[in-house]
């Protein structure tokens, strides 16, 4: 399970993608993934918001995630 990181999320983790395949308790939902990120990288708690995209679409906390999904951490956007 690979998670893409952008913007400040990339800076917090220190790289542009994160391989979760080796961790014990793989997150099964978007909510569990956010929980895992907050636990592993406490700095995420300082962000004004945090969203997750699954296969290029904003996903709800209940959305199940699978190892072949394209998953991305979306910190507050600031384009334009």
């Amino acid at each position, binding site marked *: 399970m690979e998670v*893409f990181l952008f*913007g400040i999320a990339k800076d917090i983790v220190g790289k542009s993608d994160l391989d979760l395949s080796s961790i014990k308790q793989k997150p099964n939902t978007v909510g569990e993934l956010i929980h895992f990120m907050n636990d592993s990288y406490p700095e995420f708690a300082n962000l004004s918001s945090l969203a997750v995209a699954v296969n290029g*679409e*904003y996903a709800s906390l209940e959305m199940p995630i699978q190892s072949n999904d394209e998953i*991305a951490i*979306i910190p507050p956007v600031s384009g*334009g």
Partner: protein
Amino acid sequence: MQKPIIEIVDTINTAVVYDELSDAQSGGICVFVGTVREFTNNETVVSLQFEAYKSMALKEMHKIAEKASIKWPLNKIVMRHAVGSKKVQEAVVVVGVSAAHRVECFEACKFLIDTLKASVPIWKKEIFKNKSIWVSAHP
């Protein structure tokens, strides 16, 4: 409506936008260009750096264009965002529409940029002389 022109590019050429939107059925064209401002909260900006989740950003921009074309009778839409490092006065985003009448031109153009800023996965880092900040990241 014609197929919208939606792109993420390295450099924006504002001179071509009018030709892209020009259209025999349109009486008006409205274009908004976002540019790098020298000062933010009285601090001097050296440059802005833009990063995009490109595949999703394009998908979101297409959704916004589709929503706009449902809300207003538009003939053409352009949405183009730059990535990479942009110096003061450079264009970072351009959105525009053409339509029969001017009222919908203004409303739709404003909708495009407002919605882009709210939902498209693109991130801006402000580079100052002695620090850099991801915009909007913190409350």
